[in-house]
């Protein structure tokens, strides 16, 4: 089947495409396959009709305007749009019949908001509105002033609004409280006179404004520019601050033109000529980008992608928002990325997901999907992109996690993944914090430094009584971390075979090597435990601490010295000798990864619950 939507290889655009798919699914319930089919047969309707409706509908839904305006029966809308052939006609139809009415309540609210703000001069609207509408506005403002002047200090009124101080102005929320109160009170005589007349004027104002919005002329009448902005879709966007129709100084007719140009990709339009910070906060701005050769990062390079800005506009929709973090999974196949993200979304909606378990859930979904598509997964390069906040002021916690083939190979192994899938308590700048091993591993960071801080916490536990009884809980993870660090570090050393055949088959043998290393470390740990089984817990802990502080400071020889002294006192030669062999081969003659090799020795000395490995 021919596919209309395909990834391009540029991740900004690709996530935009993904966002577009998500948006259309959110509003129309079409999956990727259906969407592709619709685009193939009715491209104009999809982009000029369905997309704008979906985009603004979603904008309203995300901001909590449920059920505002007219509920749209989509099937009916689509059938109606099929009468039109020209792009402009389709667009005009959805704009005036659907989008405008969708925003009715939001617009009414935005006008009332302006009126509540006393600094706003409604007088200048006089020429803009029909007399009857203008009168309802001035009535409202009058009764508002009367209410506040006479009741600002009235305890009952303050109580109604849930305020303790004198009421000097009202907010939209306060109006809701007043409306609820007035609607629920049956006995009219109990209604305060000022309050009831205010309520009445509010109702009239709303009615009048609604009427006005419904009868907006489809072509702008010549009115001076400043005042026309009273009529605008009351939209803004933290991400696309002031971009195109989000600009606060554009009225509804301008907004319509801009949206049309954006879909049409009319690159003569100024804002559509360049791609920079305005479109995506992760791009540098034109000025910041000082390198001449790259500065003209212009849309002309993408001229053959005629829906570029539709996709760029959908960029934020690619992300799943959870616990204040926006997270998206990206690989080089649209289908695969779509499936994984859909899965993540379903799970995030279903389960009671806590902030610190997002990565756990996310990973489980990725891995499950990987399993189902096992044949193709190895070909993909996968990324997890997340941010906390992106606007024109700040970029907060933006992370672009590449999941290399190597790491993925390890993660797909159940045993390794389960072992790394845990939080380790560490001391960070004096605070106790938790670090997620799996996350650090995916970020391609060594794991042992986490355990150094974890062990420091363990050893520094002031309550020695508690320590004597307390087990070191993470022995398994510790051994795994040491082995993984070692194997990955060893890979880094062998640079010579980069272009050989070996390189491509390496990752398969690496997993086996890791398992062998883990096995070896466990036997070493048990050997040490056996050898020191007669010693007291305190002695062992003290030795472990001395060894650990040598290890932490990367003092290899003092570490060896300390350990040899202990071994020297042992009589059972048969047990000591293999340890000495290990010390010589893996620690003394090994400058690169000796710390990993030393970890099982320490692990054998500290008391901990450890399950026997297979």
């Amino acid at each position, binding site marked *: 089947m021919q596919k209309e939507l395909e990834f391009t290889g540029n991740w900004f655009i690709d996530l935009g495409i993904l966002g577009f798919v998500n948006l259309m699914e959110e509003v129309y319930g079409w999956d990727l396959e259906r969407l592709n089919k619709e685009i193939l047969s009715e491209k104009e309707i999809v982009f000029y009709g369905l997309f704008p409706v979906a985009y603004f509908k979603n904008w309203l839904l995300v901001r909590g305007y449920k059920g505002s305006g007219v509920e749209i029966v989509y099937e009916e809308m689509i059938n109606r749009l099929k009468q039109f052939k020209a792009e402009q006609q389709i667009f005009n139809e959805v704009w005036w019949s659907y989008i405008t009415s969708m925003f009715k309540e939001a617009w009414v609210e935005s006008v009332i908001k302006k009126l509540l703000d006393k600094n706003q001069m409604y007088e200048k609207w006089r020429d803009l509105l029909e007399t009857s509408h203008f009168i309802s506005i001035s009535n409202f403002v009058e009764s508002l002033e009367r209410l506040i002047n006479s009741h600002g200090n009235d305890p009952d009124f303050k109580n109604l609004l849930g305020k303790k101080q004198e009421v000097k102005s009202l907010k939209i929320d306060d109006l809701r409280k007043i409306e609820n109160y007035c609607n629920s009170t049956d006995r009219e005589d109990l209604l305060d006179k000022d309050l009831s007349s205010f309520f009445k004027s509010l109702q009239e104002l709303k009615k009048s404004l609604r009427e006005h919005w419904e009868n907006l002329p489809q072509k702008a009448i010549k009115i001076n520019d400043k005042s026309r902005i009273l009529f605008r879709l009351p939209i803004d966007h933290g991400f696309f601050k002031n971009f195109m129709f989000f600009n606060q100084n554009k009225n509804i007719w301008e907004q319509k033109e801009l949206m049309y140009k954006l879909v049409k990709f009319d690159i003569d339009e100024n804002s559509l000529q360049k791609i920079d910070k305005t479109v995506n906060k992760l791009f540098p701005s034109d000025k910041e980008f000082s390198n001449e050769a790259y500065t003209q990062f212009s849309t002309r390079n993408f001229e053959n992608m005629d829906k570029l800005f539709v996709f760029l506009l959908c960029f934020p929709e690619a992300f799943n928002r959870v616990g204040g973090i926006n997270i998206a999974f990206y690989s080089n196949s649209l289908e695969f990325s779509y499936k994984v993200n859909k899965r993540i979304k379903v799970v995030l909606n279903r389960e009671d997901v806590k902030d610190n378990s997002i990565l756990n859930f996310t990973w489980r979904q990725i891995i499950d999907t990987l399993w189902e598509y096992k044949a193709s997964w190895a070909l993909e390069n996968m990324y997890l992109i997340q941010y906390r906040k992106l606007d024109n002021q700040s970029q907060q916690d933006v992370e672009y996690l590449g999941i290399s083939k190597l790491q993925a190979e390890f993660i797909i192994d159940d045993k390794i993944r389960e072992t790394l899938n845990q939080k380790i308590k560490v001391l960070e700048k004096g605070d106790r914090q938790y670090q997620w091993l799996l996350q650090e591993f995916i970020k391609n960071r060594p794991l042992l430094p986490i355990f150094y801080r974890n062990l420091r916490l363990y050893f520094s536990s002031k309550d020695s009584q508690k320590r004597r009884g307390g087990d070191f809980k993470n022995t398994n993870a510790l051994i795994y971390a040491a082995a993984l660090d070692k194997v990955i570090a060893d890979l880094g050393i062998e640079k010579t075979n980069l272009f050989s055949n070996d390189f491509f088959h390496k990752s398969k043998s690496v997993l086996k090597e890791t398992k062998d290393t883990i096995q070896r470390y466990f036997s070493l740990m048990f050997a040490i435990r056996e050898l020191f089984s007669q010693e007291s817990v305190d002695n062992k802990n003290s030795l472990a601490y001395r060894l650990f502080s040598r290890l932490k400071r990367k003092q290899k020889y003092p570490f060896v*010295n300390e350990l*040899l002294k202990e071994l*020297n006192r042992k009589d059972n030669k048969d047990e000591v000798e293999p340890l*000495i062999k290990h*010390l010589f081969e893996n620690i*003394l003659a090994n400058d690169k990864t000796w710390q990993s090799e030393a970890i099982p020795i320490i692990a054998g000395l500290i008391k901990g619950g450890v399950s026997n490995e297979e």
Partner: protein
Amino acid sequence: MRNEIKETEILSKIKLIKEKAPRAFSGVSESYRQKVVYNLLNIVRSGDMRQFLWTLLRLLNARRESDEAKELVKIINELYGYESKFFEKWAYSIIMGIMSAKE
């Protein structure tokens, strides 16, 4: 590059030391061996190369009838000329060798 070759050469010599040492010190009583190891460990910890050699050669001199001991002296002689950065490595190799010697 030259430096690297030198290093691998030295490493192979150090390995040789580790192999020879157990035989050079075989037949020594356990308590004596423990005492020697303890002394050598303390010396190497203080980083005193001369003191270490002095003690070690005195020990080997006492066992000069053994061919293995003579060979060991020869290797140590070759290594002695090199920079002291390898000192700890071969010093510990000898100690480990002594520790794995059979009674």
